[in-house]
C-alpha cells in the first residue's frame, strides 16, 4: 500500500529538497500516515547501506596520468608558433624511439598484434589532431589541389578522391608523423564528424579490412596497391566500412 504523497513530496523531503512550507505540510501528513513513515525508514536504510558499501569509485591512477598528458601537450603547442615546431620534433623523436623499441619487441609479435599496435598509435594521432589546432594542413574539397599539396610532402602519389556524393565530403589533407615517418592524412566529414584516413606506403601485399576501437574511436585498416590505409573516427563503424568500400573500389 502506497500513499499518494510518496512519489514526490516524500522523496523531496527525504533529500532535503522541499521548501520550508512544503516540508511543514509534509510533516503534518507524516504524523498520521504509517505508509510514508515506513517508507522513510526504508529510504534511510537504503541510503545507509549505499554509504556503508562505499560504492564510490575514484579515478584510476592510469586515467589520472592520461588526462594530465594531453593537457601538457596542448600547453606546449599553444605557447607560440616556435615551440610548436619543437613539440612536433620531440613527438617525432619519441615516435622514432617507439619504433625502435617496437621493432625489437616486434619480432615476438605476430603481424596482427603489430597492426593493432599501429592502429592504436594512429587513433592517438587522430585524437591529437582533434585537440591541437586545425585538422587540415590544406583545407580544400578539390581533389587536385589536395593531391598536389600532399604528394610533395608525403613523398608518394596519394590517391585523393572526394566522395561527397557518397556522403563523405573531402575537407582537406595534412601530413602527420606516425612511427617516425611522414604519413599522408585525408580528412573527410560525415554527419559533421571528422574522419581521418591515414595513408602510407608499404611493401606488404593487399589485405582485407581489420577493424577495432580504442578510446571510443573506431578504426578500419586495410592494404591495397602497396599502400596501407587506416580510417579513424568516432562516427558509426558502418560509416567507416562504407568509406573503406568507396576508397577500395576507386583505388
Amino acid at each position, binding site marked *: 500500500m502506497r500513499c499518494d504523497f*510518496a*512519489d*514526490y513530496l*516524500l*522523496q*523531496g523531503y527525504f*533529500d532535503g*529538497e522541499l521548501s520550508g512550507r512544503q516540508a511543514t505540510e509534509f510533516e503534518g501528513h507524516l504524523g498520521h500516515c504509517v505508509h510514508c513513515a*515506513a517508507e522513510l*525508514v*526504508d*529510504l534511510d*536504510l*537504503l*541510503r*545507509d*547501506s*549505499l*554509504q*556503508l*558499501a*562505499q*560504492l*564510490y*569509485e*575514484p*579515478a*584510476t591512477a*592510469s*586515467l*589520472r596520468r*592520461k*588526462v*594530465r598528458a*594531453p*593537457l601538457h601537450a*596542448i*600547453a606546449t*603547442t*599553444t*605557447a607560440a608558433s616556435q615551440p610548436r615546431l619543437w613539440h612536433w620534433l620531440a613527438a617525432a623523436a619519441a615516435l622514432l624511439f617507439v619504433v625502435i623499441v617496437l621493432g625489437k619487441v616486434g619480432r615476438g609479435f605476430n603481424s596482427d598484434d603489430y597492426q593493432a599496435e599501429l592502429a592504436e598509435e594512429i587513433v592517438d594521432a587522430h*585524437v591529437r589532431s*582533434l*585537440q*591541437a*589546432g*586545425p*585538422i587540415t594542413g590544406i583545407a580544400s574539397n578539390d581533389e587536385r589541389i589536395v593531391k598536389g599539396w600532399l604528394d610533395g610532402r608525403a613523398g608518394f602519389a596519394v590517391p585523393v578522391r572526394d566522395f561527397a556524393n557518397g556522403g563523405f565530403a573531402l575537407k582537406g589533407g595534412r601530413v602527420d608523423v606516425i612511427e617516425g615517418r611522414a604519413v599522408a592524412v585525408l580528412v573527410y566529414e560525415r554527419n559533421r564528424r571528422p574522419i581521418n584516413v591515414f595513408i602510407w606506403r608499404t611493401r606488404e601485399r593487399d589485405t582485407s579490412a581489420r577493424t577495432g*576501437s*580504442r*578510446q*571510443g*574511436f573506431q578504426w578500419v585498416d586495410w592494404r591495397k596497391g602497396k599502400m596501407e590505409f587506416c580510417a579513424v573516427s*568516432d562516427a*558509426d*563503424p558502418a560509416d567507416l566500412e562504407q568509406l573503406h568500400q568507396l576508397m577500395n573500389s576507386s583505388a
Partner: protein
Amino acid sequence: MSELGREDRERFEKLVLPHVDAAFNLARWLLRRRTDAEDVAQEALLRACRFFGGFHGGDARAWLLQIVRNTCYTWLEKNRPMELSVEFDEELHLQTCATPETLVIAGDDRKRLTLALETLPPRFREVLVLRELEGCSYKEIAAITSIPIGTVMSSLSRARRQLYSALANSSQGACP
C-alpha cells in the same frame, strides 16, 4: 577547433580536473566495467577540453558530468545497444517478498549492492549514483541529465523502489 590558451588551460586544470573522480565514478556505474569507464571518461575529458571555450563559468562538475553522461550513452548505443532498450521488469521484480520486514540489507554487502544497482536501467542507475554517491542536488541532476526536476524526483522514487526490489530478489533465501 580552438586551442586552449595558457589562461584557459589553467582554468581547465583548476575547474575541471578536480572532478576526474566524479567523471570516472559516473562512467563506471553507467558502463559497469572499469576498463570501459576509463576509456570513455578519458574521451569525455578530451571533449571537455575541446569544448572548454564554450564553458562560461557556473558549475564545472555538472558541466563535465553532462559531457561524461553523453559520451557514455553514445558509447552504449554503439557498443551495447541492448542495455539501453532493456527496461527493468517491475512486474517481475516487485512480485517478490520485498517488504521492510523481510528485507534486511547487510550494510557491508558491497557485492550484492553493486549487482543490484547494476540491474537497474541506466536512466534510473544514473539518478541514484548522482544523488547517493555524488551527492548532487535535484537541480544539478536535472542539468546533468537534461531532464526536468519533476522527472528527476519521480525517477529517483522509482529507482529507489527498484533497487530495493532488486536487493530483495538477491536475498530470496531470506524470504519466509
